[in-house]
């Protein structure tokens, strides 16, 4: 598959299941001469979608377009067939955790969550009760009656979460939700995010911590310079990059067969390099699919039993580096 066809193929891939859909069609958003996002065409559906990219890639702009906080300069954005920029009733279906601080510091945690719940038409008493239950669930039972200005960063993140989910939205937009949180808070929030996704919510999540995104979802939107580099399942994306060099590690059951295996592998046209390690043989290939197809026959003929096969370069970080580094376009 050529570079341009890869771009167009993956950039129009629908993501997720069959619930509430978010559709961006050629969405471009400029801030004066600065481009936020350019010609983004993606469809996002239920489940968790990770939005990845370096600083200034357009992740926050993409989220603002979905939320209706920014309108596209060109193209369109629709949520469930409606325009999020003008349809105020649609906003009841959004929950938003911004990257930045967004508090009424003079309020208590409970008061803050209840304040926004009341904007969803919930009565003051019920809002207070629901806020208390949510904050309790997030481990803020003792702090909920304290003013937010006394909260730690982790407590503030939890409060942001509580506010965002209090009205049970269909779409959760989480911009760097784990930023500055301790491992316990991070684990708790990840648990909750997984649960919301299982309940059928659509979750958009951006994070600089690739490991966190990797732990939550395989469904990724890669952005760089305001453009979508790839959309979809990260393993599928990897397969769509046949010319990108990948490492594969083969561990023979009998370590003494490493030399024989290395010689056999060197004869394969799809393999560009072989290195002999202590317990395994590591190969470099720019045609991983052809290699994986040929491998079973090769091993059967040579009567070599393999203990394990893994691809150290297939984790999200490696894929991110390849995509952002532009390797996928180098034919």
């Amino acid at each position, binding site marked *: 598959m050529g570079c341009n066809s890869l771009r167009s193929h993956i950039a129009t891939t629908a993501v997720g299941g069959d619930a509430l859909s978010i559709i961006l069609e050629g969405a471009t958003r400029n801030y004066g001469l600065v481009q936020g996002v350019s010609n983004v065409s993606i469809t996002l559906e239920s489940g968790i979608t990770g939005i990845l990219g370096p600083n200034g890639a357009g992740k926050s702009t993409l989220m*603002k377009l979905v939320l209706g*906080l920014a309108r596209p300069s060109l193209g369109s954005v629709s949520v469930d067939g409606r325009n999020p920029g003008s349809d*105020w009733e649609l906003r009841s279906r959004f929950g*938003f955790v911004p990257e*930045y601080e967004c508090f009424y510091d003079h309020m208590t945690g409970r008061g803050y969550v209840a304040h926004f719940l*009341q904007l969803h038409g919930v009565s*003051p008493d019920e809002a207070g009760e629901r806020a208390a239950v949510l904050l309790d669930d997030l481990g803020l039972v003792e702090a909920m009656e304290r003013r937010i200005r006394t909260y730690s960063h982790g407590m503030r993140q939890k409060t942001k979460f509580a506010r965002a989910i209090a009205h049970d939205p269909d779409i959760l937009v989480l911009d760097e939700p784990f930023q500055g949180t301790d491992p316990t808070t991070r684990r708790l929030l990840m648990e909750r995010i997984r649960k919301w996704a299982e309940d059928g919510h659509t979750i958009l999540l951006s994070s600089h911590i690739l490991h966190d995104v990797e732990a939550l979802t395989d469904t990724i939107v890669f952005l760089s310079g305001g453009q979508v580099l790839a959309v979809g399942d990260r393993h599928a994306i990897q397969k769509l990059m046949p010319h990108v060099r990948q490492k594969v590690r083969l561990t023979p059951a009998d370590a003494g067969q490493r030399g024989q295996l290395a010689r056999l592998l060197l004869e394969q046209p799809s393999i560009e390099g072989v290195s002999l390690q202590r317990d395994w043989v590591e190969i470099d290939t720019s045609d991983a699919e052809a290699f994986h197809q040929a491998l079973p026959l090769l091993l059967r003929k040579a009567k070599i039993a393999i203990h394990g096969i893994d691809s150290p370069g297939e984790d999200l970080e490696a894929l991110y580096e390849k995509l952002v580094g532009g390797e996928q376009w180098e034919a």
Partner: protein
Amino acid sequence: MGSIGEKFERLLQVGRPIFLDGIRQFLLARSTLIIAALLLTPCLLSGWYWYDNRGEAETQVIDGDPLHEFMADMFYGLAFHVYLPMVIALVALLGAAELLDSEFQKNTMQLLRTSPVRMYEILLPKLLAGTVGTFLAVGVPLTCLYFALLVHAGSFGLREHLPLLWAALGTLLLASLAYSGIFLLINALVRRPLPVSLVYWLVWEVIMSGASSQRFTIMHYLRSFALPRLDYLGIVADDLDLVIENTSGNLPELVSIATDPLQAVAVLLALTAVTMLLSTRLLERKQF
């Protein structure tokens, strides 16, 4: 969500938390507290002076005028030449920034914009909070001042000049509404609303309000509203700068340009409605 009744009911429901938090923020803002404390100081001093000299008050005459008239004149001077042109606008200006600009500073406007409320459902409670906040922050010290001054003339003075107090409070209420509207508009319009609001107030409302083009100022309509209510004190248009010099005759003469009080109220209400409409449109179009 069709009928006006339903819309009003919804406005009351979603506007309640915004109004309550707004009024609390307004009244507890450091600037409001400092101004209120400054305004209350002369009241306390005057009250203390009365307490120290009680018993002599009703018998005194100053410059040939009964004491109650002297004190009423003093209250009129402070209310309509200090509070009205300066204090009210300043309090409303700072309050509007506390109500709207702070939403941008704290990034909470993005949260409001992603909540299922229309922009007018956010702005109207804020206008109400600005109006009530300004009215309370200035009205309470003003009422205290009235009592602190007129008490020197005993219970007769206090009763005799109640129309003056009502005139001052009525004008204050209108001023609170109109200034809150205009300063909220400035907050919706520009990124640095405080300096722009100050320039507007000093150039437009203070300097222009004494000139012939004063019909374009809020101050003109506030004074026009107050004028007939001050008639019993012998206050005329010239005292409130509601005159222009007519030079068409042999001798220049001062001509009253005061607007009919009902018309003045209508103009101020219409102005506030326009500022709210414009603010709503501006904030709806604002992008982040």
